[in-house]
C-alpha cells in the first residue's frame, strides 16, 4: 500500500462502510454521488485521525455514539441566510404575493440543515403579514440539526453577511431587530418560530407527508446521483399542489428529470419552477 492510500478510502471500503451504515441504522447513502460521499469519508479519516480505514470501521461497528457522529459528518450542514439574495428578492416581490389568497400556506424546506433558509423565509412572510397563516415544515435527515432549528440560534459572526443579503432582497428593516445578540450567538425572535414544524425526514427512504404550495430544496440534490435525484424530484412532485412552486439550488436543474414536462420555469437563473399540470 502506498502512503497516500492509507488515509483515503478505496471504492470497496466505501461500499463496505455504506452497507454497514444501512445495516446498523437504516441510512441509505448508496445512491449519493460517489466522489462527494467519498470525500466526506476521507475528511472524516483526517479530522478523527484514523490511521487507516480499518480503525474507522472498527470504531463504527463497536460504538453507537461514533456511528451517530459518522452519519452527522457524512451529511453536509453548511447553509446561509438569504443565500443567493436574488432568489429571495423574487420570493418577496413575485411569489409571496401570489400565495396571499390561500387560507393556509404550507411550505416545506426539505433538507434544510441548520435552518438558516427557513428563518429567511419566515422573515419575508412576516414582512408580508402572512406568517400567521403559514405552516412551515423544516426537515432534515440529521436529528442534531433539528434541535437548532427549534432554538433559532446562529453564529453572531455571520450576521453582517446575512444583513447585507437581507438588504439585497429588498429588506427595509434593520436586520438586527430580528435577533438578540448574546456572547457569540444571535437568537432569533420567537415570533418567527411559532409556525415552524421541525422534524427529521429522510429524502431517500421517507414518503410524502403533506401537500404544499411551496417546496424549497436547495443544494441538497447535488449530493445525490442522478437516479436518486429523479426519485426525490418525483417525491416533490407528489407533494406539491397544482400551481405550486419548487425552488432548487442555483446550479441544480429539473429539465432532464421525469417531472420536467409538468413544470414551467418562473425564473431560470433563480431556479424557481411552477407546477402547471
Amino acid at each position, binding site marked *: 500500500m*502506498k502512503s*497516500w492510500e492509507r488515509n*483515503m478510502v478505496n*471504492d*470497496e471500503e*466505501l*461500499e463496505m462502510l455504506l452497507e454497514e451504515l444501512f445495516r446498523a441504522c437504516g441510512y441509505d447513502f448508496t445512491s449519493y*454521488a*460517489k*466522489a*462527494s460521499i*467519498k*470525500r*466526506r469519508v476521507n*475528511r472524516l479519516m483526517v479530522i478523527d485521525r484514523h490511521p487507516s480505514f480499518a480503525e474507522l470501521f472498527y470504531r463504527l461497528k463497536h460504538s453507537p455514539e461514533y456511528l451517530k457522529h459518522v452519519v452527522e459528518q457524512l451529511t*453536509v450542514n*453548511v447553509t446561509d441566510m438569504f443565500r443567493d439574495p*436574488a432568489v429571495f428578492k423574487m420570493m418577496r416581490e413575485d411569489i409571496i404575493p401570489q400565495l396571499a389568497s390561500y387560507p393556509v400556506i404550507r411550505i416545506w424546506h426539505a433538507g434544510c440543515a441548520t435552518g438558516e433558509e427557513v428563518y429567511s423565509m419566515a422573515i419575508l412572510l412576516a414582512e408580508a403579514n402572512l406568517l400567521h397563516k403559514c405552516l412551515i415544515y423544516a426537515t432534515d435527515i440529521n436529528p442534531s440539526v433539528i434541535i437548532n432549528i427549534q432554538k433559532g440560534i446562529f453564529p453572531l459572526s455571520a450576521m453582517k453577511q446575512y444583513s447585507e443579503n437581507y438588504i439585497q432582497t429588498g429588506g427595509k428593516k434593520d436586520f438586527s431587530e430580528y435577533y438578540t445578540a448574546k456572547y457569540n450567538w444571535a437568537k432569533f425572535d420567537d415570533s418567527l418560530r411559532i409556525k415552524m414544524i421541525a422534524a427529521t425526514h429522510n429524502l431517500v427512504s421517507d414518503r410524502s407527508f403533506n401537500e404544499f404550495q411551496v417546496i424549497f430544496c436547495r*443544494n441538497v*440534490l*447535488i*449530493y445525490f*446521483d*442522478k437516479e436518486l*435525484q429523479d426519485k426525490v424530484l418525483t417525491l416533490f412532485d407528489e407533494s406539491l399542489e397544482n400551481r405550486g412552486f419548487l425552488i432548487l*439550488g442555483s*446550479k*441544480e*436543474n429539473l429539465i*432532464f428529470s421525469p417531472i420536467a414536462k409538468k413544470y414551467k420555469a418562473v425564473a431560470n*437563473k433563480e431556479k424557481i419552477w411552477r407546477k402547471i399540470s
Partner: protein
Amino acid sequence: MAQNKLTIPGACIIGGSAGSLDILLEIIDAIPPDCKYIFIIIIHRKKDGESVLRSLLQARTKLPVIEVEDKDPILPGRIYLATPDYHLLLEKESYFSLDYSEKVHFSRPSIDVSFESAALCCGEATVGILLSGANEDGASGLKLIQQCGGKTIVQDPDFSDASYMPQKALDIIKPDAILRPGNVKEVLLPFLQY
C-alpha cells in the same frame, strides 16, 4: 462499485488564484482546437452573475467553455469552469458533482478538492497545472495527482505575480515541467499526447 466510464483521453486540470489570469489566457490560446482532452479550470473568484470569466475565455477558443452545473456530463473537447462558491468533483460515471461543504484553505471552489477528485477519477490520464496565487491551496492535490501517476506542471514562482502558491507545490513535489509566460505552448502540448 462504479467502473470508470470516462470516454476522454485525459483531463487537464488547472488551478490558479491571484495573478493567474494572464497565464491562464496563454494556456487557453495554446489548446489545439481539435483537442479531445477536457480542461477543468479552478480559479478563486467572487460570484459574478453573468460570469465575465467564461465570456473572456470563450472569446479566445473554439472549444465550448462551460460553467459547470450539477451533474453536467463530462464530454471530450470541452473547457469546464468551476462555479463560484461550490467545490467541483468528477464522478467516474462521467459527470460532475457540485459540493457545498466547508471551505478548504478558505476557498470554495478549492483547488485541492478538485485536484484530488481528478486524480482519483482519471489517475495517470490527469495533467495538473498550478498557477500563481497567494494561498496554499493546490499543493497537496497536485502531489496526489503525481502519486496517482498523473503529470504535474507548476508556474515558475519567479515568474508569477503571487509566488506563494506555486512555491508551496515546489516545496513538496518535483513537477514534470515548469511553466513561464511565453513558453506555455511548448511545455503544455507534449502532455496532451498531441
